[in-house]
Structure formats: structure tokens, C-alpha cells
């Protein structure tokens, strides 16, 4: 039998408890991260960078690959307006990209009409093929950009519709082949960031699975798996990767990869990713070892959850904090590695651009006769700022996710 006073007390406690909100690890970490000014600036910078890199085709930039050896070599940063497609050697209709596109569309329409008029099936087939090949070779986009994927192609069309022939002047100057550096830095950001992110993700998948499995099973399995990691640690991977890339660059090997539909740059990402998982696996294993005797794991085992389920549903989410910290620290080292390789001429191959490649071009252009400082400064600054931001964000996250700091500032 419950007395009134008892009930009152209970209700009071209940009301009080409703007023208290639990602070999850992530809320707490986010609160602390928000107070860390450098980390927040870095985060905002990185988000902006990612967005800009994604919408690069939408921006009114000049062509990243169109060379102008006669008039535009090593122009210092300037504000002179540049009209898209105005270079004389392109022979664009009316000296503009829109003019040429109108002409091109007209030609395609004319061909299609031809096709519609002839009743002959063979003839139609032939015309369809010629349209196809003209689209591939003569379309103005293919002369100003390098192998746009369907999404970028659409985005470029929107850009032309909005901005017409306007393009941003060469505010970063031009390089030794007369290409606009601003456009190249933007397009290079796409490659550099994708290399960093994909390789880091590959290393994340391998490292987390490997470390979690070793940590969960423990005993001999753990010992054997970690011994392998120890052995791999003492392999000089920089050299092994170069050796591997040499092998992958062999024409026959390349042809084989093309035949199975994997392109060179994909292999490159995966190779880099596959060597950066070692530290990740060690860290995850340590965490899992500590967690696996916790009660929630025992509970899961009691109700008959399978080991894979326990590992990936119960253990892995609990080590995500450390994993994210290591991820933010892996991305910059992968990007630096890509820059290294591109600099040595074994990374991203032209006409693709990456920051490493731009820096390589820039360094080649450094000479005493005339200092083309802009070809080094801008790509270098882009890379350095990104690496800065990633490092600061990683440090900030590490502090923020440190459980010893819980509920403190």
C-alpha cells in the first residue's frame, strides 16, 4: 500500500530525473571540440574544401588542360578577363565555347535528321556511329576537360547555362604550358582528396576488421595475427609500393587490369590504403581486448549472437572514437605520400592533376633566371593548409574523445 507522501516523493524524483539529460560520449566530445578554436576552424575549412572540390565543375573556372604555348606561358597572377574557348588554335565558332557548342549541336541535329530521312537500316547505323564518335572526339567539352564523368558532365552543362562564356581570370597565374593554375588547383583538389579519403577508408576497413578479429578471439589467433603485423611493420613500405607500382605500370599488367574493368588510379588508391592499416589494427585490437570482457559482450554471447555479429555490431561501434582520430591522422599522411609519389613520377599520371603533380611542375619551373613563384606557392599552400587542418582536427578530436576528459572542459 502506497502512502500519499511516498507517492509524492516518487513523483518528485521522477520529475527531477526528467530534468537531467544523459550526456553521451559523442555529445560530450562535440561540446569539447566546439571550444577548441583551431580544431573548429580546421573543421570548417575542410568542409568548405570538400564542398568546393565537389562542385568544381559548376564553378566558372578556366580549362585545366587547355594549353596555350604562344600567349599565356607563365603569366603572373592577373585580373585580365578570359573568355572560354577564345584561344585561336581551338578554332571555336565565334571564338567562344557557347558558339562552338551551338554549332556542334546543330551538326548533331543535322546528322540525326539525315538518319531519320534514310530508310536504310545500315545507313542509320552508320550515322549513329558517327554521331557517337563525334561526341567523343569533337565535343567541345572533351577538348577543354579531361574525361568528365557523367555527373561532372552534367554539372559542366549547368555551369555553361548559368555563366555562359565567363570564366574567372587567372588570379593564380598560369603554368609553363599556359594552363590556368586556379583551375588546376581546384581539379587537383578532387584527385588529392579522393586519394586521401579512399586510401584511408581502405585502411580503415582492413585495419578495423583485422584488429577487432584478433582482439576478440585472443590467444593463439591473436598472437599469430599480431606477429604478422610486427613483421609487416619492419618492411619498408615506401619502397615496396614503388616496386609494386612499377609492376602495375607494365603494359601487359595494365592491359589485364583494364580488361577486368579496374583502372590504374583505383589500383593506386587500394595499394596505398592496403599499407596504412597496420597502426589502425594495433589500436583497435588494444581497445577490443579491453572491451571483450565487458558485460554487454557476455550478454550478447549468452543470447547466442555469433562472433561476427558481436565483433561488428557490439565491439566495432565502441571503438569508433579512436578509429576516427586515427582516420583524420591517416588522411594527411596518405595525401603526403601521394604527393611524394606524384613528385617522383609514379603517382597520378597527366592529364589528371593532383597537388603533388602541380608541385612537381612548380619545382621544375623554379629557376634563377626568373622566379615563377606562383607555380609553387599556390599548390604548396593548398596542400600545406589541408595537411595543417587535418592534423589540427585530428589532435582536437583526440583530446575531445579522450574519456579521461569526460564532463570536464
Amino acid at each position: 500500500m502506497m502512502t500519499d507522501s511516498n507517492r509524492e516523493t516518487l513523483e518528485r524524483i521522477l520529475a527531477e530525473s526528467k530534468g537531467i539529460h544523459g550526456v553521451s560520449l559523442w555529445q560530450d566530445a562535440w561540446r569539447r571540440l566546439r571550444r577548441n578554436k583551431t580544431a573548429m576552424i580546421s573543421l570548417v575549412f575542410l568542409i568548405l574544401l570538400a564542398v568546393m572540390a565537389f562542385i568544381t565543375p559548376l564553378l566558372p573556372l578556366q580549362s585545366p588542360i587547355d594549353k596555350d604555348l604562344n600567349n599565356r606561358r607563365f603569366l603572373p597572377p592577373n585580373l585580365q578577363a578570359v573568355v572560354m574557348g577564345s584561344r585561336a588554335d581551338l578554332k571555336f565558332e565565334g571564338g567562344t565555347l557557347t558558339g562552338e557548342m551551338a554549332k556542334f549541336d546543330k551538326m548533331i541535329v543535322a546528322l540525326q535528321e539525315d538518319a531519320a530521312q534514310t530508310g536504310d537500316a545500315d545507313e542509320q547505323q552508320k550515322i549513329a556511329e558517327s554521331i557517337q564518335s563525334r561526341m567523343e572526339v569533337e565535343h567541345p567539352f572533351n577538348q577543354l576537360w579531361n574525361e568528365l564523368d557523367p555527373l561532372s558532365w552534367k554539372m559542366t552543362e549547368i555551369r555553361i547555362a548559368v555563366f555562359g562564356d565567363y570564366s574567372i581570370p587567372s588570379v593564380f597565374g598560369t603554368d609553363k604550358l599556359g594552363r590556368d593554375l586556379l583551375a588546376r588547383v581546384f581539379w587537383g583538389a578532387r584527385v588529392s582528396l579522393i586519394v586521401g579519403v579512399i586510401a584511408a577508408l581502405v585502411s580503415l576497413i582492413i585495419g578495423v576488421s583485422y584488429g577487432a578479429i584478433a582482439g576478440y578471439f585472443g590467444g593463439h589467433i591473436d598472437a599469430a595475427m599480431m606477429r604478422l603485423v610486427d613483421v609487416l611493420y619492419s618492411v619498408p613500405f615506401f619502397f615496396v609500393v614503388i616496386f609494386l607500382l612499377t609492376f602495375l605500370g607494365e603494359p601487359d599488367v595494365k592491359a589485364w587490369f583494364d580488361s577486368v574493368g579496374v583502372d590504374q588510379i583505383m589500383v593506386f588508391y587500394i595499394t596505398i590504403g592496403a599499407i596504412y592499416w597496420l597502426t589502425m589494427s594495433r589500436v583497435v585490437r588494444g581497445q577490443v581486448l579491453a572491451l571483450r570482457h565487458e558485460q554487454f559482450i557476455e550478454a550478447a554471447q549468452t543470447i547466442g549472437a555469433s562472433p561476427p555479429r558481436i565483433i561488428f555490431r557490439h565491439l566495432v561501434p565502441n571503438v569508433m572514437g579512436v578509429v576516427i582520430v586515427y582516420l583524420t591522422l591517416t588522411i594527411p599522411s596518405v595525401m603526403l605520400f601521394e604527393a611524394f609519389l606524384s613528385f617522383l613520377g609514379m603517382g597520378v599520371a597527366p592529364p589528371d592533376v593532383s597537388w603533388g603533380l602541380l608541385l612537381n611542375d612548380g619545382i621544375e619551373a623554379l629557376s634563377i633566371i626568373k622566379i615563377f613563384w606562383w607555380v609553387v606557392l599556390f599548390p604548396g599552400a593548398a596542400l600545406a593548409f589541408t595537411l595543417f587542418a587535418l592534423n589540427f582536427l585530428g589532435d582536437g578530436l583526440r583530446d575531445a574523445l579522450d574519456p579521461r576528459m569526460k564532463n570536464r572542459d
Partner: protein
Amino acid sequence: MRDLAGYILKRGLWMVLTLWVVYSISFALMRSVPGNPFSSERGMPPAIELQMKARYNLDAPIMQQYVDILKGIVFRGDMGWSYKLEDYSVNQVIAEGFPVSASLAIFALVFALILGITAGVISAVYRRTPADTALMMAAVLGIAVPNFVIASIAILLFVFMLQLFPAAGWGTLSQIALPALCLGMPIAAYIARLTRTGMLETMTKDHVRTAFAKGLPRHKVITRHVLPGALLPVVSYLGPAVARVLTGSVVLEKIFALPGMGSHFINAALQRDYTVAMGMVLIYTVLLFVMNTLVDITYSIIDPRVKLQ
């Protein structure tokens, strides 16, 4: 002492195992590439090609070749002939490149240690002063800017504009200095940060307070009581630092046109000179293993709490 011998023996065994794995993988890759060193030679009569292959043991079954080359490496230290450099064996290439790379690496490491520790100590002692901020900004810059960029700017500045150093060449101290400085710079930056953190942490320890309390002068407390404890993380970073120096020297040798192992390795890789590339990978593995072992041993001597295992 017994511990030490056992430890070295164990590491040695692991090294042999690692080398064997690296060799096997390299061999498999090398042989899976179609063609052989002679097949690209235009106009070589088939009979002569056969003869050449027989001379270089390329006509043997693949397993036989695998064993023969392995035997050659193990018993005679013979890593075969270069595919691309005329009249060079892999051993000759390495013998030529090694002294250059080794002296470059040693200079760079010594420089990195001196500069890094000094900067770290200064910024910890004068914490929250402009000197501290400036040094730590410089350190972050050193970490984030790739060393090939630093190197090319340094060439422009010191070689061409100020004309303090010669542009290229190898042998004299002034020719080593600039590449070694550029190579050591990112490592110095890292060491500076490690030292600073270590110093700040040790300075809050009780024994330091005691030292101050008994009236020791400040510089003595810092050099005798704080620094040794603060340098432990630096010692354990030396292992990765060696790896970084080896990697970095590849790039710097290319920029400064130095005839070290790194530039040979890059050339070998670019020209698909598989024997040289494989030999280099093996040598780098040995170097890394030896250096890591040395660092571990040093660490256990400095910090008696750490046991070698």
C-alpha cells in the same frame, strides 16, 4: 647481457623471415611480368637469345630459378646483374650508393636531433612567450610542408640568391649540408613537438619540484632532472625517424642529383630494372630492421623499466 643476446638473436630470426617474404613476393612479381631482359633487344637471333638465357639461368624451371637466386644471395651475397645499367651488378650499385645515402641520413638525423631538442627545450622553458609560439608555428610548418617543397625553396634561396652553398655535387661538407638540412627539417619539427610535450609533462613531476625546492639553479634542474625524462618519447620516435629519413632521402637525392641508393632505386623503378629494385628493397629492409633493433636496445638501456622481449 644474456637478455640482450637472446633479443638480438630473436630479432635476427624475424629479420631473416621478413627478408624471405619480401624476396618471395618480389620474385613472384618479377617473374610474372612477361618477357625477359633479352626479349626486347631487336634483331637478336633466337639461338643467341637462348644462349644468353642459358648463361643467366633464365631457361631453368621457375622453382629452380627461385632457389638458385636465393642461394646466390644467401651464400655469396650476390644479387645478380642490373637489367638496365651497363656492366653493373646490383652489389656494385649498392656499394656505390650506400655511402652517399648513409652519410646524408646520419647528418640529417644529427641535425634533426640537435635542432629539434633545442627548439623543444626553449619553447617548453619559455612557455607561452612569443618565442614558444614562433617555434611551434615553425614546427607545424615543418610537418605540413612536404620536404621536396622545402628543398626546392632552399635551393632557390641559398644556392642561387645568397650563393652560400654549391648547387650540386657530392663529397665536401658544404655539399652535404643543404640536402641534410632539408631532409632533417620535418623530423626536427616532430622532435621539437615531442620534446616540448615531454618537458612540460616532466616539469610537473614531484622530483622536479624537490629539485627546485632544494635550491638548485634552474638550468641545472632542466638539464639534469627534466631533460632525461622528457627525451624518452624522442628516443622511441627515432625508429620511425630512421624510416622517414630513408624515405625522404629518395626524394632529396632526386632534387639535389646525388648518386645515392635512393636515386638508383627510383631510376630502377622507372626503368623496370627489377633486379636492382629488388636488391634495394632487401637492403632497405635490413637497414630498417637493424636501426629499429638498435633503437629498442637503446631505449631499454635508458629506461630500465622497459624490458626487451
